[in-house]
């Protein structure tokens, strides 16, 4: 009799535990290949590594101005401040170096990472906050200010290293990646633009006075000193700005939306050399 109940029970819950198979397999590596091919067929003369220079591949005049500005890059102050902050000891005697492999030097190109324990994507900024939290300190702003300066320093130690974001064969990581990808291609806001509308379909073209950077390589330069901000800003600062620009409602900087988008977008630049920190108009 008991056996009958158990069998009945198993038959009842079987459909529930059997996860519905994904309608489309998530294949980041295939996506990456297609992403690159799409751009490279659009711009056959552009070398792959050159994509990190974004808009400057498409306007000689802007490139000249950028070279002039880069002669003494405007992010120099943040770089220095960031190094000092990075090396400053916490109240408990430890420092950021204790939270990262290789003491945090030359590792920024591996972010964002999927955190198997929290089941979330961690950008470098989020990892810095988690480090602070682990040492009894308050989290800091993810978009600008001192944390952006620390990131500025950390990415600088990775300059030239190929971007190397890992998407483990873990359904949670794949789901996060896929969510980021979906976001990238979904239209939103009053202007009804998706990220792809500007940075894929209109890449290299002008939006009024601005030249649109291709999405390929765009993640390689952050954080950036933006002339418009007169200040440093992280990738998520720009996500929020872009949301506002298309009149879409932005969300909190540490939200899953932006983490997952950063995951997808940075992965799409895997293999390209880190060219951060950057300077843009």
């Amino acid at each position, binding site marked *: 009799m008991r056996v009958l109940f158990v069998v009945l029970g198993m038959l009842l819950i079987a459909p529930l535990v059997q996860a519905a198979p994904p309608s489309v397999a998530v294949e980041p590596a295939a996506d990456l290949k297609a992403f690159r091919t799409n751009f490279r067929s659009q711009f056959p003369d552009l070398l792959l590594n050159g994509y990190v220079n974004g808009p400057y591949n498409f306007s000689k*005049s802007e490139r000249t101005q950028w070279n002039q500005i880069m002669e003494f890059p405007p992010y120099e102050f943040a770089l220095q401040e960031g190094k000092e902050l990075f090396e400053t000891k916490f109240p408990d005697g430890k420092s950021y170096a204790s939270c990262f492999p290789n003491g945090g030097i030359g590792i920024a190109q591996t972010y964002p990472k999927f955190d198997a324990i929290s089941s979330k994507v961690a950008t470098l900024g989020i990892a810095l906050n988690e480090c602070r939290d682990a040492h009894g300190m308050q989290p800091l702003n993810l978009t600008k200010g001192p944390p952006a300066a620390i990131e500025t320093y950390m990415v600088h130690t990775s300059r030239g290293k190929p971007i190397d974001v890992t998407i483990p064969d873990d359904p949670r990581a794949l789901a996060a990646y896929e969510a980021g990808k979906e976001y990238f291609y979904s239209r939103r806001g009053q202007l009804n633009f998706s990220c792809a509308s500007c940075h894929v379909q209109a890449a290299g073209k002008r939006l009024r006075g601005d030249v649109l950077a291709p999405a390929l390589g765009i993640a390689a330069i952050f954080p950036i000193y933006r002339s418009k901000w007169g200040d440093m800003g992280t990738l998520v600062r720009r996500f929020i700005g872009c949301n506002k*620009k298309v009149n879409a409602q932005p969300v909190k900087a540490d939200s899953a939306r932006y983490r997952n988008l950063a995951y997808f977008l940075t992965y799409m630049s895997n293999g390209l050399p880190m060219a951060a920190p950057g300077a843009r108009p």
Partner: protein
Amino acid sequence: MISPESEPRPAFTPGRRYVLKAGAAGAAALLVAPAFAEAADSDIVKANPKDYPLQAFLQKTEQHTLADLYNKVPEESDKITLDAPEIAENGAVVPVNVSTELPSVTGIALLALDNPYTLACAYKLPAGTMSDISSRLKLAKTTKVIAIIESNGKLYSTSKLVKVTLGGCG
């Protein structure tokens, strides 16, 4: 190390010499001056606020600006090179360079006719300083930029239209 094929000249190339504070480490180190830097150092020449040509910076025409600054009127010269973009990438940071072959240059100035105030900056050059200066200007809108050179007591000028467009990216 992978370098983008089109990476700009890196900020720190080996072989350059840097002005460094004693004790600063590494070729990439730069001088940092905290706000409380050495006041006692006799080699520092302090900026004197009394020297400031305040009236010149309040003028709204080329004529009045130059009258206040130099009490002269310029003649156009093709011996001045004004390097400024045709279209500014961002009106808040416009790289501008002025250089000239004119002799005995004692003054260089930059004017932006359609800025709220015309005078952007003015420099006094002692003998031995080359007449080649780079700055980054804020231009409120599309404007004629005028470079002024004071050479052998006379004033010369050249100009260039710099377009400032509205950005689209927000």
